[in-house]
């Protein structure tokens, strides 16, 4: 198995299926939440996973960290296949990969003090003496811009933005290499979002972090990510560097997503004629042909799209698209 030396994370044909039983006699329903996803993330880069709710991006993130067990496929972290690790080895590796969740209100234990919350991962991994841990906690709090006077407060005394900083500190206190950010700013106020994004970017530069950034807001994805994968019903529709993806989106779904984002400039988009998709994200069980076809303005009535599932193919430098007719539907971009 050849391995790209520069890539920290390699995901190969990852699948996660959920089986839903409605009753003992009815046929079990198989939901393909993640359906054969492959990508690589280079050291120090920010890789974005973009998609609407139900596209499987959060399930995928949890599979990456083995917070849930994938059904098939491999996740290779720094050359190590996570699926082959025994529990103690996995636990040791967990130090190097952390996650920040969306809701800073739900993800912090209300009974613990700020210092305790940030110290806990060190404690769990049995790192350092009491004094060393305290020093590490202080250093990390400073890193995320929380004053030392907050050490003994409880989460409820903090604002949403501060809480998310604490959640970030908790993830960073172990000095991980990979951090998965699951919608880290979507629960925050607009005026706070920029603060947290800037903080995340500073930390990346200072600590040489690699990010997997899960996001539904395309404007933020475009701003923050180096490369992105657009997910639809558990599969990658398009994968490219940010400039390539946003300047030359080839998949109809990417185009529809982009044209759906309102632009803060009066009269602009309304004149340009946007693509409005019909219907909503369906639940995918078994399917034939392209999974986007039911809502696709391009392939809706095309036989090829109904019969053959398009593969993710290279259509430009580092630009891969899963579509039989890439680039047919294009939104005007500046």
């Amino acid at each position, binding site marked *: 198995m050849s391995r790209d030396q520069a890539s920290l994370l390699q995901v190969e044909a990852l699948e996660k299926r959920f089986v839903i039983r409605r009753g003992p006699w009815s046929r079990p329903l198989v939901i393909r939440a993640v359906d054969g996803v492959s990508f690589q993330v280079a050291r120090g880069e920010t890789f974005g996973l973009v998609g609407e709710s139900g596209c499987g991006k959060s399930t995928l993130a949890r599979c990456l960290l083995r917070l849930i067990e994938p059904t098939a496929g491999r996740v290779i972290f720094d050359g190590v296949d996570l699926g082959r690790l025994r529990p103690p080895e996995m636990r040791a590796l967990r130090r190097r990969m952390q996650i920040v969740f969306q809701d800073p209100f739900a993800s912090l234990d209300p009974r613990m003090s700020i210092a305790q919350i940030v110290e806990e991962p060190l404690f769990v991994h049995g790192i350092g003496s009491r004094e060393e841990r305290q020093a590490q906690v202080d250093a990390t709090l400073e890193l995320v811009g929380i004053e030392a006077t907050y050490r003994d407060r409880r989460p409820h005394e903090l604002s949403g933005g501060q809480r998310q900083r604490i959640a970030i500190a908790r993830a960073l206190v172990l000095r991980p290499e990979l951090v998965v950010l699951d919608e880290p700013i979507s629960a925050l106020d607009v005026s706070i979002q920029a603060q947290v994004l800037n903080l995340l970017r500073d930390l990346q530069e200072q600590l040489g972090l690699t990010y997997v950034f899960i996001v539904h807001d*395309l404007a933020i994805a475009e701003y923050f990510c180096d490369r992105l994968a657009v997910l639809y019903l558990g599969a990658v529709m398009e994968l490219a560097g940010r400039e390539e993806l946003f300047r030359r989106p080839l998949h109809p779904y990417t185009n529809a997503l982009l044209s759906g984002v309102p632009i803060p400039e009066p009269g602009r988009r309304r004149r340009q004629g946007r693509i409005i998709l019909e219907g909503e994200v369906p639940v995918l069980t078994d399917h034939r042909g392209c999974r986007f076809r039911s809502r696709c303005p391009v392939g809706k009535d095309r036989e090829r799209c109904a019969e053959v599932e398009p593969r993710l193919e290279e259509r430009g430098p580092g630009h891969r698209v899963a579509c039989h007719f890439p680039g047919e539907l294009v939104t005007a971009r500046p």
Partner: protein
Amino acid sequence: MDEVLLSVRGLRTEFVTRDGVFAAVRDVSFELRRGEKLGIVGESGSGKSALALSIVGLIEPPGRVVAGEVELNGRRISGLPDRQLQLVRGKEVGLIFQDPMAALDPVKSIGDQIVEGIRRHRRHLGRREARRLAIELLREVQVPFAERRLADYPHQYSGGMRQRVMIAIALANEPDLIIADEPTTALDVTTQAQVLDLLDRLVSERRTAIILITHNLGIVAEFCDSVHVMYAGRFVERTTVEQLFRAQAHPYTEALLRSVPRPDRLQRGPLPSIPGFPPSLAHLPPGCSFAPRCPAAQEICRDRAPATVELVSESTPVLAECHFARERLRT
């Protein structure tokens, strides 16, 4: 220009909490014309939702509207007994709320919930007739298989479909005014585009005036004619959408616009962010409430709350609450 439909003067809404009394809406005034699409922009805690509920008298204890006048169609509706306000709500004013998952009664069918609104204001209608109207409404908001889906319950609808039901309920009696509080925030991008499109078409066809409350400046730019920016319970800037995006009289508006990454241009580098966090309404600073976060704050800003400044910029009227609004627009 169209006649004035809604006029709000000096509206003030207070909440009594354990930490003391605080005002969520602080002496807010504005006018809305027939067919106008007004955007109210603000973050959580800015008082925008309290304002929406105050207008139609739906503020619940421990909240209370303590001052101000609301006139609708030339008739004063503030201070009316609830019995008379009930005849206004759902008939002259329709409301759409943010969270379609929480906005419908889980144990009543969709049909019953639409019919309830229809029959409340058209008592002469029979059940049958009201149901026929409900089906028509569902068709109008593009719920597929409307007739069959009337008997379904909310949990059988998706988020986008529930938001359509909400719109149908708000439109049921062809109101003159619709107040939509973050109507698409809980929805996905593609669904959001559908719902906004639908709302736009419906209000344009009927010349319905709409107040769209949102935190998303992109939605305002696309949807609205005029815009009011709300901060800490007050309108800090009021103008047309074109003017607002051209030049910002208030530093908060400017900071808000710049702190959001634009989806239409590639940018790198740090985002210009607003330091600090929105003030707690219970502990407002003595001067301008934005002063502690304002990059251009002077001595006077910390001491004295700014009065409303009336300006004209490129023949568009601008109302702003900033000591330096005039200077800011001139440069």
